[in-house]
């Protein structure tokens, strides 16, 4: 059930991501929903789940893009694994720590992703990619925190709605 939810989330993130792919900031996607999902899964499900989610999502994302297949997968695998490590070693339950984790995860992902491309001399990222990376990190962090809040809010809202309906009937 949980795995199905993860797959659904990844698929949804990929669909959104491909839709947003045309919105680039200095050659970098402004928001990486797939990465947000990977970090989220890592934080909530542990390093193994984060790693596998990162692998699958990254490879699919690479396959859908025109880059080298595996670079995004490698970066997301590492980020998902480390996100899982952080989630199991630290209490990341407040918005600020989550923001920091998502922000840092995005920076690490960008460093790995761009670094591998540069090292392999396959692709260039403009003169100032770090600006776009910082923007993306902030956007991902906000999206991650919001996602946590939404997911954590949804079960309570349902319960509240269920609890409110009988009262109205009375």
């Amino acid at each position, binding site marked *: 059930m949980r795995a199905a939810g993860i797959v659904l989330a990844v698929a949804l993130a990929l669909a959104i991501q491909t839709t947003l792919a045309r919105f680039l900031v200095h050659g970098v996607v402004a928001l990486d929903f797939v990465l947000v999902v990977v970090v989220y899964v890592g934080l909530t499900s*542990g*390093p*193994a789940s984060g*790693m*596998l989610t990162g*692998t699958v999502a990254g490879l699919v994302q690479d396959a859908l893009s025109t880059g*080298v*297949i*595996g*670079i995004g*997968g*490698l970066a997301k*695998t*590492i980020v998902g*694994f480390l996100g899982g490590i952080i989630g199991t070693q630290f209490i990341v339950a407040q918005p600020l720590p989550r923001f920091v984790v998502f922000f840092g995860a995005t920076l690490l992902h960008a460093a790995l992703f761009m670094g*591998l491309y540069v090292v*392999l*001399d*396959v692709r260039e990222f403009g003169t100032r990619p770090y600006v776009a990376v910082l923007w993306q990190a902030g956007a991902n962090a906000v999206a991650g925190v919001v996602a946590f809040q939404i997911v954590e809010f949804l079960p309570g809202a349902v319960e509240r709605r269920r609890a409110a309906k009988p009262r109205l009937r009375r």
Partner: protein
Amino acid sequence: MALEDIRQRTRYLFLVVILGHILLISAQVNSRRGVPVLEAVTFGVFSEVQRAASSVVSGGRNVWSGYIGLRQAHAENQELKRQLADAQITMQAQQALADRARSLEQLLELRDRVHVQTTAATIIGATPPSPTPDFRTVTIDKGTRDGLRPDMAVVAPLGVVGRIVVPAVRSAKVQLLIDRNAAAGALIERSRAQGVVVGTGEERLRMEYVSEVADVVVGDIVVTSGIDGLYPKGFIIGRVEAVEKNGPTFKRISVRPAVDFLSLEEVLVITTPPPAREGAEGTSE
């Protein structure tokens, strides 16, 4: 324990996944030389393995072949040394045979030349000259069984050697002409001046009783005169080395022997008595 096991498995899985990604990337990306990184890295790693294996194999082969080669070289060296030793021995034997043949040939020539009956003999011993300079003798391997008698002349291809003084059954002692007690009738071949050659115990002879007026010069050849009844006439004794005046009557003449007594090996014993002694023996009989 179970939790730690799960973490350990996760780490291994992480490493496997990372390695898989690296391989996947390497298979797609070309290096600066246009070769896929995976292929280049794989080939590089495999070539290093090949190089190491080749080095080990070639090193082992070199060590093995060197060891075997060294052993073969050692064996070959030993064989060559043995062959060299054999060749040296053979050469020495051939040289000795040649020398002996040459010596015998000279003796044969001498025998043909003198027209007397002779017996060839080999010197088997000699008295050392230094302890007893007065007595210069050698021992030959022929004796009375071979017809040898006392006072038989002994000659060599180069000249007179001496006479038999003590014949045994199978050997005989020869008194050399340089013995202090030896003497032979002699004459200067060129001027026919007569005298007596006596031994001095050293390497030189002395010719005595040569007239003061006789024509003798350094370099004259001295031969046996045959009047002593021991040595046949005409055998070379030596060459005049010095001529001095010895009183009012005679000359003092130093003669260098024609025979090198130190290197004698083969001699001829003249078994035919000289005419003078033959006549004397016939008279006595």
